């Protein structure tokens, strides 16, 4: 009767029985998932379905109530060099006294190491990353003077400067201009062709087919996941967006209150 889902050592991200609760309200409950390697994967689901929480829990940014996450068969702590993160734009103070290049070099900090200053090569890498998102002209611009889309591209460049294998992006397409959208899509396809795994929290159902190869439909639990052609069906979407499963949320909420 009891089946243990094993962790696949080849999967870039393997999630097992993951439960996360915020202020006693469960956001994710018993999520089980193996993410395929080298694909562009969208996480799709209604508001409050736990999309951002899922990637945050993978990166140990929110405490897990239970469950395990493995990155290529090892814990996140041991594998964090492989992971890049593009947080939501609103998560930082854009009045901070720093320029775009300064933000992007942050992606190099862990390579530079403790206490050492930023080297020339790091600035060069950061500039390359800015170039890739079409922002090299704005390198010395203070970040508050950038438009929302440009800020998003700076965040993307910072992740690129890290040069890792797995990328987590939290709603990178949220309210950006056309130029930024185009730049992000280009970066995504570049990343895919160089074999990286990209997991994107996405809110726009219209563009899923166009931008991504795989999709995870999420509503507190995984409703379905797999290739876009197979999974992104009207029936599955109805299941995902058909309102919260009130009975389950009620039960899980009671559980969390304990």
């Amino acid at each position, binding site marked *: 009767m009891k089946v243990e889902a094993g962790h696949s050592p080849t999967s870039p991200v393997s999630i097992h029985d993951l439960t996360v609760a915020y202020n006693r309200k469960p956001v994710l409950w018993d999520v089980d998932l193996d993410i395929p390697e080298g694909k562009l994967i969208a996480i799709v689901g209604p508001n409050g379905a736990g999309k951002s929480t899922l990637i945050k829990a993978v990166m140990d*940014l929110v405490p897990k109530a239970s469950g395990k996450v493995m990155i290529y068969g090892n814990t996140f702590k041991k594998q964090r060099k492989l992971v890049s*993160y593009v*947080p939501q734009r609103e998560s930082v103070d854009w009045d901070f*006294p*720093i320029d775009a290049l*300064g933000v992007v070099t942050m992606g190099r900090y862990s390579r530079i190491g403790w206490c050492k200053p930023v080297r020339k090569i790091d600035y060069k890498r950061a500039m390359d990353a800015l170039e890739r998102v079409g922002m090299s002209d704005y390198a010395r611009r203070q970040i508050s003077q950038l438009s929302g889309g440009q800020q998003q591209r700076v965040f993307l460049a*910072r992740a690129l400067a890290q040069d890792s294998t797995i990328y987590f992006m939290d709603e990178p397409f949220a309210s950006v201009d056309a130029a930024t959208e185009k730049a992000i899509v280009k970066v995504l396809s570049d990343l895919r062709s160089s074999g990286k795994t990209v997991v994107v929290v996405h809110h726009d159902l219209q563009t899923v087919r166009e931008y991504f190869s795989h999709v995870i439909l999420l509503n507190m639990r995984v409703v379905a996941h797999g290739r876009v052609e197979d999974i992104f069906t009207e029936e599955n979407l109805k299941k995902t967006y058909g309102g919260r499963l009130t009975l389950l949320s009620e039960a899980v909420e009671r559980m969390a209150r304990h």
Partner: protein
Amino acid sequence: MIANHSISDSRVSLPSLEQIVQVLTLEEYNTRVVVLGVMALGTAAGLVGTFLILRRRALTADALSHATLPGIAIAFMVMVALGGEGKNLLGLLIGAFVFGCIGVLAILGIRHTTRLKDDAAIGIVLSVLFGLGLCLLRIATELPNGNTAGLNGFIFGKAASMVANDALTMGVVALGVAIVIGILRKEWTLLCFDEKFGAVQGWPMLWLDVLLMAMVAIVTVIALQSVGLVLAVAMLIIPATSARYWTTKISSMLIAAAIIGCLSGWLGGITSALIPRMPTGPIIVLICGFWFIFSFIVGPVDGLIIRQITRLRLNRRISMQHILRAMWEVSEDTETSQFSIEEIVYVRSWSKRTVSKLLRRCEKLHFATRVSAKNWRLTQKGSAEASRVVRNHRLWEVYLITHADIAPTHVDRDADMIEHVLGRDLVAKLELLLETPALPKSPHPVGEQQ
């Protein structure tokens, strides 16, 4: 001192030139100690304060400094109990440091275990530990061989009690702080800007945070003697906040904050040496306050004046564009391309005075000329400029009607608001999008707008 002052006599006796020179050259031992000490303190506080401000922890630092009081009292009692004289500065400061850290931990504890928010947690720790400190201080005065005179000085600061060694300690601490900040600048920048990203990268954010607060505690502790614990937080936050109005780079902000802190210390030290009955700590804080007001008003980054100027410039550009558009639209309808002020007034809801003022500015810029006593005409240059402005406006109108579904009756006003703030590249995009001829016709009758 002087007993026979009347109340209304608020005269401050001015120091003589000789006195001023004596103070400025730091000839006198006491002045030298105090001035050099508070300068070192101001520098250190400016440096640490920069990160404190960027981390948005101003009030936590306030709680920290108030929480040092029981530490001072307990350290004093312990030292007396051990047979010491009780007022060993190092001992007192260690006690203060320990309790400062306890205070910060208590704030974090309350925030994590209850549903109270930061503000309440800070207020509770600040007031209760300060109360405890006052109780213990009162008790300490009754210790048989303890001489508590001067312990009160830690509350409001008593720079006069400083000796050379104290100033030296301050200097060493300032140097230490500067070195630590030089080493950890990159890490703390990450902590203050994007903690989560740093955590994903594997930086021990919690320990960096603890280390930063420890630095704050150290600076607070060395500020106790001169500035006092009630005002210590001012040294940390005011120079750093003022520095933000001068630069948008973190390295220059550190330097600016250090300079402002150091200068405030210097000016404060000198002022209190020159003018009688000027307590050093409060004077330094007041001077910091002046720096803040000065920076707040004239600073080139978001300073009050610069913001007013930008706004005025924008307003000016907008009214210039409005008058150009009005002149264009009015002359479009006439044979002679001439128009009177009244016609402009009719088109725009401006007063006659505003219109003639704007027309005079147009004349200066060679956009318009006066052809007769009543009539004006656009020059060639003005025509070109006006047609550009009108074109932008109408492109926006068309865009808003076709793409944003805005009623033609409202479109004029909406386009008005948008067109002034957007640049050339957007206009180019708009042209591409709309594939419009050189100058679209106005989608609404000109001159009937409100």
